[in-house]
């Protein structure tokens, strides 16, 4: 340590911003080296201010660190609360996404081997994103469930945010699997509108039942209708132009219905009540 120290009066004037710039610069250079003079400054700093900053620092140090995905979302302009909601969605965890990718890869591979399995791919493809939506709200899997039930947060908003997040992640997976399919390229996209329609229908149904049940109902209807036609070989009936327009209509209708009733309908996110 140096033996030379700043004059106490100079420290006082420096701390109060009254020291001329060249003397302040010299004081700062000394302060970097001298713990004793740094200590003297503390008497000129408002202890309430120091205390307040300390509490903020401790709060932030104690807060769980945000994951890379969450920080990326925040940087892209998503609100902090929304980013956290998206990140804790059970569907977006690795194992689930791996499972969806695995099943679809298998279906695509089977379709390569035998043309008949192609039909099954179309039956299964919309179920991937749809099941993702259900899992996002499945009671035991959602870590924010208890908080969500008690929080004064719009159920519809939560539903839409999570559904959008799930679709944003799972649709590319299905699309990638679709590209592996044999046959013309439009086939690879034929499941898109049915997926949109089914998702909107499920969302609209959440006014009456929990998301899990709603997705279950929609998925069951979908399989009951398409599986027999697919097995019978009438692919056009389920995926032709007419069917595509029908699913587009369902998607638009469901969306409009949700928009129209957004203030009057209570979305049931909790236990079926």
């Amino acid at each position, binding site marked *: 340590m140096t033996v030379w120290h700043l004059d106490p009066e100079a420290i006082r004037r420096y701390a109060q911003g009254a020291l001329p710039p060249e*003397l302040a610069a010299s004081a700062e250079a000394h*302060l*970097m080296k001298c713990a004793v003079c*740094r200590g003297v400054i503390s008497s000129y700093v408002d202890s309430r201010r120091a205390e307040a900053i300390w509490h903020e*620092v401790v709060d932030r140090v104690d807060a769980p660190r945000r994951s890379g995905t969450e920080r990326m979302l925040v940087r892209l302009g998503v609100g902090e609360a929304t980013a956290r909601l998206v990140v804790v969605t059970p569907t977006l965890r690795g194992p689930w996404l791996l499972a969806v990718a695995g099943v679809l890869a298998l279906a695509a591979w089977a379709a390569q081997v035998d043309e008949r399995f192609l039909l099954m791919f179309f039956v299964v493809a919309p179920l991937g994103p749809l099941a993702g939506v259900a899992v996002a709200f499945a009671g035991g899997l959602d870590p924010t469930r208890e908080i969500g039930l008690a929080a004064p947060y719009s159920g519809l908003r939560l539903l839409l945010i999570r559904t959008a997040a799930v679709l944003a992640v799972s649709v590319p997976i299905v699309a990638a699997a679709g590209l592996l399919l044999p046959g013309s390229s439009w086939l690879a996209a034929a499941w898109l509108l049915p997926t949109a329609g089914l998702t909107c229908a499920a969302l609209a149904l959440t006014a009456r039942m929990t998301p899990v049940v709603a997705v279950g109902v929609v998925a069951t209807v979908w399989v009951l209708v398409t599986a027999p036609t697919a097995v019978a070989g009438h692919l056009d009936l389920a995926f032709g132009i007419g069917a595509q327009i029908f699913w587009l209509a369902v998607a638009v209708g469901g969306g409009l219905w949700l928009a129209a009733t957004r203030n009057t309908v209570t979305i049931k996110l909790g236990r079926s009540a």
Partner: protein
Amino acid sequence: MLTRPPDPREDSELLAAITDGDREAFAELYRRHLPWLLVRLGRRCSSPELVDEVVQDTFVAVWRSAGRWDRRGEVAAWIWGIGIRRLVDALRRGRPPADELMEFAGVETSAEEHVLLAVQYGDVGAALASLSPELRAVVQATVLDGLTTREAARLLGIPPGTVKTRMMRARAMLRERLA
């Protein structure tokens, strides 16, 4: 938390303890380094709220990256390096500090007056004081605060090219004064 008995450990030992998650050591480091950091940053930014925020950021960063201190030089200088860069970042994100500087320049005696007053003295302090506030701010940011041209430009709210020309002019003036 500011009234506990002093901790005998050196700053470097405190940082090592912080790496292991020692909250007591962190509190002690905060106690020692908050005051001067608050004052020093406060001299470079007119908004106390922004300074508080930057200081907060700085200590959170110290807690998280204590292990990244390279064990050379003063811990205080390391903390200052973090703090001044956080301030530059905060200023880039938010409002430019230029209006406050202009106000300051108006109160200051004119550059000519400075020069005339300082001609009779030959030392560095007087030479520095003889610079206009604009030139002195650039000298302070680059030479004394250790910022790059680009960082100094952000801190002062002027283009990097201006920092370079002002620095050149300041250097020429200082050389002349000290010759």
